[in-house]
């Protein structure tokens, strides 16, 4: 579950990392992850705070140097072709504070625009209006939410082929959050792009996602399409005889279990046919199989019993 092997070239990936590892002092931030984000995907990278989501994004922008492994964005090596990689990326960083507190928002937008030949000035003006950015406000006086909206303008206005959004809904009140996400969806409808969203607020962005990666303590414990996740992470209600013990190899995938008499309810990972057959072989009867909401399914990989 920790990723795919090296030799999967051929398919076009917007983002691919190969055994990416990163440490901060003695802290392991990333432990050999193999991210694969297909072109055009909306990939949500899920994990608790400190799981390594932000670090992975910083490595992609060559803001951090990995200790081992490497990363590619559209086939460009991030370490040796940093400027080219960054030209493809719209980045909404996790932190809200801006440098240039003395500058006016409008001037900061102009400043950033000067660095992207692909900058779409008419679109930028539209975004400024939609996101309610006031160009004459000083950057230093912005609230968290205003700052986030400014960051969205800066990230979207050059219509980048890759968007890296680190906790994009953080600091936004519910109304603004919905408007922002709607704007993002509209942007994606107009401008095909690959999106990586790092978040622990899965609910807020899940409707956009078609790929899911789960990071846990620096390890990529799951990476699959949304459909695959829906198919392979499901809840089984199983009737078992008295004193029944689950087959040992099921435990690896076993996630949640609530015993109520002779009935066991599990969230199990695996092809449903195989799991059902396996359970039947062990003497249990599968009563029914229920698909899960994306958040539930993804969180299953963060449950304690899963061994990475």
């Amino acid at each position: 579950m920790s990723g795919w092997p090296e030799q999967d070239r051929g398919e076009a990936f917007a983002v691919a990392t190969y055994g990416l590892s990163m440490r901060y002092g003695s802290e392991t931030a990333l432990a050999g992850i193999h991210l694969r984000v297909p072109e055009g995907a909306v990939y949500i990278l899920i994990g608790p705070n400190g799981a390594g989501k932000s670090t992975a994004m910083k490595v992609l922008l060559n803001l951090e140097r990995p200790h081992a492994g490497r990363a590619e964005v559209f086939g460009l090596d991030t370490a040796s072709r940093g400027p080219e990689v960054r030209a493809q990326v719209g980045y909404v960083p996790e932190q809200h504070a801006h440098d240039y507190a003395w500058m006016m928002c409008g001037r900061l937008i102009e400043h950033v625009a000067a660095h992207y030949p692909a900058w779409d000035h008419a679109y930028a003006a539209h975004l400024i209006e939609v996101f309610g950015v006031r160009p004459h406000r000083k950057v230093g006086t912005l609230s968290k939410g205003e700052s986030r909206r400014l960051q969205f303008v800066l990230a979207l206005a050059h219509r980048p082929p890759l968007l890296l959004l680190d906790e994009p809904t953080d600091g936004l009140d519910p109304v603004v959050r919905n408007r922002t996400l709607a704007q993002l969806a509209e942007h994606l409808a107009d401008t095909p792009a690959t999106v990586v969203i790092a978040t622990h607020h899965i609910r807020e962005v899940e409707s956009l996602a078609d790929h899911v990666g789960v990071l846990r303590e620096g390890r990529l414990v799951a990476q699959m399409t949304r459909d695959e996740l829906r198919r392979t992470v499901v809840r089984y209600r199983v009737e078992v005889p008295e004193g029944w013990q689950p087959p040992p190899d099921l435990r690896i995938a076993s996630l949640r279990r609530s015993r109520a008499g002779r009935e066991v309810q599990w969230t199990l990972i695996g092809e449903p046919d195989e799991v059902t057959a396996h359970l039947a072989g062990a003497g249990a009867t599968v009563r029914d199989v229920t698909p899960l909401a994306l958040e539930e399914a993804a969180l299953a990989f963060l449950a304690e019993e899963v061994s990475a």
Partner: protein
Amino acid sequence: MLVNLDPNDGRPLYLQIMDEVRRAIVVGTLRAEDPLPSVRELAAELVVNARTVSQAYQELEREGIVYVRRGQGTFVSPAVRRGGGERRRSLAREVAKRALLEARRNGLDAEELVMAIQKLAAEEERAEARLARAAGKGDDE
């Protein structure tokens, strides 16, 4: 047309969108030759990937429920005037599917669900009848 998606619904989003369109047609909020919202509009409104909306529209087109006018958008097919009964049955089937799913999530089986629905429907009927009688009396006084 109002489309609602349920994040707790385990089914793929494009299926949910398809169901919502079908529902709107059965209920009558969408009629033959009515335009569907553009992919872009609906994607923004629902905060979903535009590809999800496209997929739903393509499936609906394949089923003959909608058709695409080049450069103008997606419209409800004139064929929906016919076959209303069948569409109702198919909608009922989808609703039942959802209910069944929800029942199973709560550890109920189909039989229990059907019995509960029948009982509930009977109760509501009686309650309505009572209300109607009460209203009738009120009018008399």
